[in-house]
């Protein structure tokens, strides 16, 4: 498996490990009643972000130890084409999310609900980017 594909799957795994529990907790906890500088939620978000960094760091270290020659390999035209495609798809997810968060949600929601919805849109866009890249590497892409 090429290094770029492995690092893409690692990025996907790190996102899922960190942010699925975060958004599960957020969805199950009533938070809008809490004051705006919500330290509990900020702390939770900081913790999952650090967890993501740790998973990524451990993964890249593992790649560096196991296959050091792959790590030095530069991205080629196929890697760049897959990057462009996955980023283009993720852009649409992100822009739809931002329209919902910035232009629609303020009429009916407030505070942390909007903040978390914005974070969810960003995380979802990144997850979609990783999935499109993973599928493009596996199933091929003629574009």
């Amino acid at each position, binding site marked *: *498996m090429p290094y770029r*594909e492995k690092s893409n799957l690692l990025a996907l795994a790190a996102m899922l490990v960190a942010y699925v529990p975060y958004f599960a907790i957020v969805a199950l906890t009533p938070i809008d009643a809490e004051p705006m500088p919500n330290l509990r939620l900020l702390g939770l978000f900081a913790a999952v972000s650090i967890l993501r960094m740790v998973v990524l760091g451990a993964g890249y270290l593992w790649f560096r130890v196991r296959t050091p020659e792959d790590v030095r390999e530069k991205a*080629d035209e196929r890697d760049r084409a897959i990057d462009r495609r996955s980023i283009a798809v993720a852009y649409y997810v992100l822009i739809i999310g931002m329209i919902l968060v910035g232009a629609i949600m303020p009429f009916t929601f407030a505070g942390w609900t909007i903040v978390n919805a914005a974070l969810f849109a960003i995380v979802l866009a990144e997850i979609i980017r990783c999935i499109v890249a993973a599928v493009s590497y596996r199933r091929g892409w*003629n574009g």
Partner: protein
Amino acid sequence: MAEGAITNQIRTLRFMAGEMSQAELGQKIGVTRQTIAAIEAGKYSPTLEAAFRIAEVFNKPLNEVFQWVKP
């Protein structure tokens, strides 16, 4: 848009070039072994530049390496 698919003779040409490996060919044209494997399998259509580079490695005209096949 015209329907069709790009096929190629890279596997055969590598065989005729003394069993050149995918890694060797990739190194010559500046892509990874996996990209050569994807091109051979029809999972990735290379850029025009890469296609010309591949043809140059085998000293063949482009249309002997890549073909456009209509369904």
